[in-house]
C-alpha cells in the first residue's frame, strides 16, 4: 500500500485546445478510501488513466510513496483496477482468475494459495472457487474482479471506476458493503471514481469533487456535505442539493449568496421569509409525525424544506421559513458558515 500524491498534475490530449486536467494537487493517505466525485466530462476517466499509467501527464508528477511513477507504464506501477463492468478471464475458473496476476509475476505457489484463500474468505467466494467465471452472475463476477484487484500483496493502489454501474440496485448496497469491509480489513489505498454522490459519501474516508475547473474541494463526507467550499459542491452533493438565496434575504452582510441544506430549514409562521407551498413528498413518519419534503416557491427562487410536516399544510398555502444554519458564499466560494440564534 502506498500514499498517493498528485503534484501539479496537468494533462492535455494531443491536439486539444485546452487542458483536460490542470494543476491538480491531491494527497491520498496510505490505506485511505478516497472517492473522486464529478459529473461526466469533468475528467474523472482521464485522471484514472493517469493513475493507472495508461496516460502520462503533460506536466506535473504522480507519486506513489514519494516515488515518481509518472513515466512508468501500468504494469510497472503496482496498480489494480476494477472497471464499470466485470473484466475477467472468462475461460478461467474463479480461482485461476484470482491467481492470474500473481502467476504472471512468478509468485511462489505457497504465496498464491495463501493470497487466493484470503481473498476468497474475505469476499465469501469459497463456494465458487472452481466455477468457470463465465458462469457467474454479474454480482459474483464483479466480486471476483474486485478480488483480482486485491490479490497482489504489494499492490499500491486499487482504482475503482464506477464499479457498481453494471450491478442492479438491489445488489448495489451488498457490493458496497463488501467493498467497504475489504477496504477496512486489508487497509488498501483505494480511489473510487463515481458521479453518484451517495456512493461517494457512503464509501469514502475523504471525497474530492472534480469539475472542469479542477478539484473544488477535498474533505470528509461530513465536511463536503455540511461545509461545501464552493456553491457547485453544495448544489451537486446531497439529495436534494443545497438551497441558495441572496444573502440579503437572511440579512447577512459580507456575502453574495447564502446556502442551506433542506434539513437546516423549518416552517415558522412568524418568519419574514415567505413562500407558497408548491408540492410535498412524504417519506415516512418520525415520532408519529409525518416526515418529508416541502417545496416552497419564494420570490427569490425555490426552497426545499425537509423535516416533520405539519398536518395542516396544503399545496398553495402561504408559509414562513426559518433557517437555522447556513453557509455564505461570495463569487461562488465559501466565505463563512454559522447558525442563526
Amino acid at each position, binding site marked *: 500500500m502506498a500514499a498517493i500524491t498528485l503534484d501539479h498534475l496537468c494533462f492535455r490530449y494531443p491536439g486539444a485546445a485546452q487542458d483536460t486536467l490542470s494543476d491538480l494537487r491531491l494527497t491520498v493517505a496510505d490505506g485511505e478510501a478516497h472517492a473522486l466525485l464529478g459529473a461526466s466530462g469533468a475528467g474523472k476517466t482521464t485522471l484514472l488513466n493517469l493513475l493507472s499509467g495508461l496516460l502520462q501527464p503533460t506536466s506535473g508528477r504522480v507519486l506513489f510513496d514519494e516515488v515518481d511513477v509518472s513515466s512508468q507504464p501500468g504494469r510497472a506501477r503496482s*496498480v489494480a483496477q476494477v472497471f464499470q*463492468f466485470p473484466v475477467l478471464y472468462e475461460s478461467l475458473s474463479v480461482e485461476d482468475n484470482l491467481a492470474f496476476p500473481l502467476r*504472471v509475476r512468478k509468485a511462489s505457489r505457497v504465496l498464491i494459495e495463501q493470497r487466493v484463500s484470503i481473498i476468497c474468505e474475505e469476499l465469501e467466494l469459497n463456494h465458487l472457487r472452481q466455477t468457470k467465471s463465465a458462469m457467474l452472475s454479474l454480482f459474483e463476477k464483479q466480486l471476483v474482479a474486485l478480488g483480482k484487484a486485491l490479490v497482489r500483496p504489494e499492490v499500491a493502489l486499487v482504482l475503482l471506476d464506477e464499479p457498481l454501474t453494471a450491478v442492479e440496485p438491489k445488489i448495489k448496497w451488498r457490493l458496497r458493503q463488501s467493498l467497504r469491509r475489504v477496504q477496512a480489513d486489508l487497509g488498501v489505498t483505494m480511489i473510487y471514481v463515481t458521479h453518484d454522490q451517495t456512493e461517494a459519501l457512503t464509501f469514502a474516508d475523504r471525497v474530492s469533487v472534480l469539475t472542469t475547473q479542477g478539484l473544488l474541494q477535498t474533505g470528509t463526507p461530513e465536511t463536503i456535505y455540511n461545509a461545501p467550499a464552493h456553491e457547485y459542491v453544495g448544489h451537486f452533493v446531497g439529495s436534494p442539493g443545497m438551497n441558495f438565496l441572496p444573502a440579503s434575504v437572511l440579512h447577512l452582510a459580507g456575502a453574495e449568496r447564502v446556502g442551506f441544506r433542506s434539513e437546516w430549514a423549518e416552517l415558522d409562521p412568524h418568519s419574514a421569509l415567505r413562500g407558497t407551498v408548491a408540492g410535498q413528498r412524504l417519506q415516512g413518519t418520525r415520532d408519529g409525525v409525518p416526515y418529508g419534503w416541502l417545496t416552497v416557491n419564494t420570490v427569490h427562487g425555490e426552497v426545499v424544506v425537509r423535516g416533520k410536516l405539519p398536518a395542516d399544510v396544503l399545496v398553495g398555502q402561504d408559509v414562513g421559513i426559518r433557517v437555522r444554519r447556513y453557509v455564505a458564499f461570495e463569487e461562488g466560494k465559501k466565505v463563512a458558515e454559522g447558525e442563526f440564534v
Partner: protein
Amino acid sequence: MLPVLLIVAFSAVIPLMTVVNYSVQDILDLNTRFFVGLQWYEETLADPRFIDAFARQVGFSATVLAIEVPLGIAVAKGISKTSRLTPLILIVLAIPLLIPWNVVGTIWQMFARPDIGLLGVAVNASGIAYNYTAEPLHAWLTLVAMDVWHWTSLVALLAFAGLTAIPNAFYQAAELDGASKWQVFRFVELPRLRGVLIIAVLLRLMDSFMIYTEPFVLTGGGPGNATTFLSQYLATMAVGQFDLGPAAAFSVIYFLFILLFCWLFYASINRDKAPR
C-alpha cells in the same frame, strides 16, 4: 409457414428424397430399374477409389484448416484497429472472396505455370524443378496455396470483427495484471474469438470438403488421381458415366459425412458449455 415449407420442399427435401430413391435402385434407363437395397452403399464404401478420394479429401481439409485458421488470426492481429488505412486493407483482403471460383482456378492455373506463370517461373529460377502438372506433390502444394490465398481472408475478416468487439478495459486489465502478449492472446482474445472462430472453422470445413471448381480448373484432378477429391469423383460417376444409382449412394454417404463432421465439431465445442 406454408410458402416456406413449399420452398424448402422443392429446394431441399424433394431433390434429397430423389437421390435417396435413386441410391437403392439399379437404373438402366428411365423405364428399366431394379430395387437393389443397400448394394450401392456397400460397393461405394468398399471402393478403393472412393476410399482414396476420401482420404485425400480429409487430408486436404485438415491441411487448409490448419493453415488458414492460425494465419487468418495472425493477419487479423496485424491489422491496426485505429489506422486510417484499415478500411483499405479490409477491402483488399475481401478481394479474393469476391472472385468467382472458376476464375480463381484459372488465375492460379496461369500463375503457377512453369513456362509463363510468375510463380512457376520464379520457383524454377530459384533452383527447384517445379511442375504442378506432372508432380503430385507440386500439384498438392499449389492447390493448398491457392485455397489459402482464396480463403484466409474470410478467417481474417471474421477474426478482425471479433477482435474489434473486445472492449478496451480487457486489455487495460491485462496490462495492469502484467500479462504478456501471448497471455493476452491466450486468455483475453482467444476466448472472445471463440464464437467467430467456430463459424470460420465450420464454413471452411464444409466448403473445403465440398471443393470442386478450383481443382477442376487447376489440375483436373491430376496428375493421375493425385488431386481428385470426392466431389470430382462423384461428378465423373454421375455425369460422365451415368452411374446414377452408385452416384446417388455416393452422394448420400458424402452428405452424411459432412453432416457428421460438422456435428462432431459443434458437439465437441459445446461440450463444456453445458449449463450449471
